[in-house]
């Protein structure tokens, strides 16, 4: 997957705050929301931003904490906007 790390090795709350603070178009999804063939891990409601053709989301791994990733994906952008 093609992605850019916007915020590395942080807490989930720091990642959520980063997304809310730095992006204008923010949507809230439930924990376990499926996107890019993955499931978002976190404390709901989970902020996910869209900007252009990119989705900006928190990504949690057990050993590495939480990251904010920017991932290009026009179809996923539309799906997030439609709340599906």
């Amino acid at each position, binding site marked *: 997957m093609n992605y850019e790390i916007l915020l590395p090795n942080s807490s*989930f*709350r720091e990642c959520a705050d980063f997304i809310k603070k730095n992006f204008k178009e923010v949507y809230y999804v439930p924990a376990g929301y499926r996107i890019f063939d993955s499931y978002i891990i976190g404390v709901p409601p989970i902020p996910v931003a869209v900007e252009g053709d990119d989705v900006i989301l928190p990504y949690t791994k*057990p050993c590495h904490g939480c990251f904010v990733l920017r991932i290009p994906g026009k179809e996923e952008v539309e799906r997030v906007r439609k709340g599906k």
Partner: protein
Amino acid sequence: MKALLMMGCPELPVQTAVALYIANKLNGEGFEVTAAGNKAAISLLLNSDPEKHYIKKVMDLDRCIGALAEKKMDFDLCFVFIHSDSGISYLATVKSLSKAKTVAVIFGKEIEPLIEGSAGSIIIASKAVHNPMPLRAQIDGVKSWAVLTK
């Protein structure tokens, strides 16, 4: 009755020992126990229990979350192992996706914020890194896990 042990990063040695101890208790009460974790966490479990006396079934953590999210499986009781902020995120996710009663098994050096973040779950917590005995004492304090699922 089905129980899930959701393992965190295996960097703290106490996790594997406590998981096996809980699995033994659950097996004794007739639970069907599944352990989910990343490759390293599962490898530690299986190498500690090569004949699967305690852990009968294992699965990849991401696949487990996916199956819960897609409603392809569920559990009656879920133990989430927590020693970092990631564990709190996994606990919140399980609480959102599953009908299981959740038990937060908290350990490590700084457990207070983790206890705070686990509100709403049964909490087993101790400042433990290498020594499983304080956690074991708390686990032994629960006379029946099956009762919690009713």
